[in-house]
């Protein structure tokens, strides 16, 4: 059994980073995730594990430090919140194009612009559809508890190295700030001994030089590179879909929600069941790849799907694509940092489908 603690989501993420054997963290302060770097600084990770911690001069510098450090083949990460993640997009595109593993946490706040420091889920498109320039995808993990803020660090690194691709943890201000009990996994070794054949470890005479780049000016070669990337994203879609289904076996009505919205919907399911309405919840854990097949599989038996999001409705597009018109898909949306109550969501279900 691992150590149990009461922690904020952001702190659990930071502690898990040290325990996952992360080699380096580069960040820049922004609410509501500043606790990540503050917690790391207080822990003196260089003394605990030798982990590098550096406050960069901007999010742009931070993501480029991640790019440099990831190129050395080590386990590296950064965290930020929406406006900062926007600044990182060019760097993320380079990481994807150069096929570098790393973990990026977005503790989402409301936009557009400076928006609000209150929680939001309005960066779904940015995280799941690319975000930066060019054709690329990243595995997007959506934690819905403090426990998952810790566990997905380990999982995120595993997936990042499995596919040599950046992995995004798409969290939000609620999950980042709330305190819950968390069982922490044991300390894992850092990647000091490793076998990354592709990394910039210094060219020895027994091998060709390693170059980390996303540039190729030869159209035919560059198309082949892009096709290779697409094949990788297809493999991710095939192998890495993760979701949780709650009370779905006999469900007539389905909530689809992730992260903090899913926590709210769990309660709405209970309220509905108490009132004799057979409701269930699909909580996508990976937003890319999206659990389209599972939602589609259920669609035939359903009378309606309600997507619940702290955004104007972004994930709903993927839900609609999944069911291809087989069942009506409605949206309950709150924005600007407003968070619906489970009762409000339940009422929205009644109204949407005239129950």
């Amino acid at each position: 059994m691992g150590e149990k603690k009461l922690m904020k989501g952001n702190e659990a993420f930071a502690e898990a980073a040290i325990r996952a054997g992360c080699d380096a963290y580069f960040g820049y302060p922004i609410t509501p995730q500043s606790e990540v770097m503050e917690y790391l600084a207080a822990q003196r990770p260089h003394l605990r594990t030798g982990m590098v911690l550096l406050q960069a001069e901007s999010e742009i510098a931070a993501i480029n430090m991640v790019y440099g450090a990831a190129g050395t083949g080590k386990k590296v990460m950064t965290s930020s919140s929406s406006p900062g993640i926007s600044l990182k997009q060019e760097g993320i595109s380079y990481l994807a194009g150069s096929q570098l593993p790393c973990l990026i946490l977005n503790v989402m706040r409301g936009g557009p612009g400076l928006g609000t420091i209150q929680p939001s889920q309005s960066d779904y498109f940015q995280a799941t559809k690319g975000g930066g320039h060019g054709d690329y995808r990243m595995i997007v993990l959506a934690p819905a508890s403090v426990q998952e803020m810790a566990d997905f660090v380990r999982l995120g690194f595993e997936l990042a190295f499995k596919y040599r691709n950046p992995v995004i943890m798409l969290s939000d201000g609620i999950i980042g700030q709330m305190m819950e009990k968390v069982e922490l996994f044991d300390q894992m070794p850092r990647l000091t001994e490793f076998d990354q054949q592709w990394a910039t470890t210094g060219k020895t005479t027994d091998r060709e030089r390693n170059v980390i780049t996303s540039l190729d000016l030869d159209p035919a070669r560059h198309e082949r590179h892009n096709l290779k990337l697409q094949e990788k994203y297809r493999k991710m879609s095939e192998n890495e879909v993760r979701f949780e289904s709650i009370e779905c076996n006999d469900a007539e009505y389905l909530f689809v929600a992730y992260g903090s919205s899913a926590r709210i919907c769990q309660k709405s399911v209970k309220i509905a069941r108490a009132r004799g309405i057979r409701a269930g919840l699909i909580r996508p854990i990976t937003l890319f790849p999206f659990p389209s097949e599972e939602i589609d599989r259920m669609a035939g038996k359903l009378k309606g799907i309600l997507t619940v999001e702290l955004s104007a409705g972004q994930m709903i597009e993927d839900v609609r694509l999944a069911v291809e018109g087989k069942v009506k898909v409605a949206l309950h949306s709150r924005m600007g940092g407003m968070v619906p109550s489970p009762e409000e969501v339940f009422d929205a279900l009644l109204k949407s489908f005239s129950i």
Partner: protein
Amino acid sequence: MEARNIKLEEIIRDENLVYTKTSLMTDKPLSFCPGCGHGVAHRVIMEVVDEMGIQADTIGVAPVGCSVLAYEFMNIDMQQASHGRAPAVATGIKRCWPDKYVFTYQGDGDLAAIGTAETIHACNRGENMAIFFVNNGIYGMTGGQMAPTTLPGMRSSTTPYGRDVALMGNPLKITELVAMLPGTCFVARHTVHTPLAVRKFKKAVRMAFENQKLNKGLSFIEIVSNCNSGWKMTPVQANKWMEENMLPYFPPGDIKVNGEMVSKTAKSE
């Protein structure tokens, strides 16, 4: 004089050898315009890495600009960087490999415009690495637009009537600026357009790598170079123009050595 019929084999002999290309430059033909300083600067840096025997411990960072393909020519492990961010990328590498030698090789647009923040902060943190900064007063790669170092009155494709300092500001002497920061230990300005200048530059490059070994902080070497294509001149004209116009504004010489300011102009400025 009588013309002798000399066979090639008679000339190419070990005892006649005065120069060989370092094996740390690949055999790929350089893509730079003939007469451009980039190629010489590349070669000198690789010669120093070769002479110090640190190929297996050196990682270079090539950003965007005419040096974007540096990794095609330098036979060491390298990372390409986005425009302006090479000092941040190099910071990430150096922090993960504190015992390796890390350098960036950047143009003036890259280092002194879009990447100003990354440059200043890497210098200010005193990252134990080297920055080689090729100042050709122009954006060579993108076709000769104004750079932060374009001289007053100098023409470029975005200042076709000459740089008007009232509208576009003065050329940025970023090398003098970073010399003011405690994190830099060695700051110098060189050229590579004459054999003597190349020899001096090579000494400076050597010092930049030696400083890293001793964890002395950041070494910053500016190379004032021609961009004959961007300046729309022949290589010979370009070097003459550089001597007459660029060098008075960007005078070669040491500015800071071993953490001490040595240049009088820098002190009085």
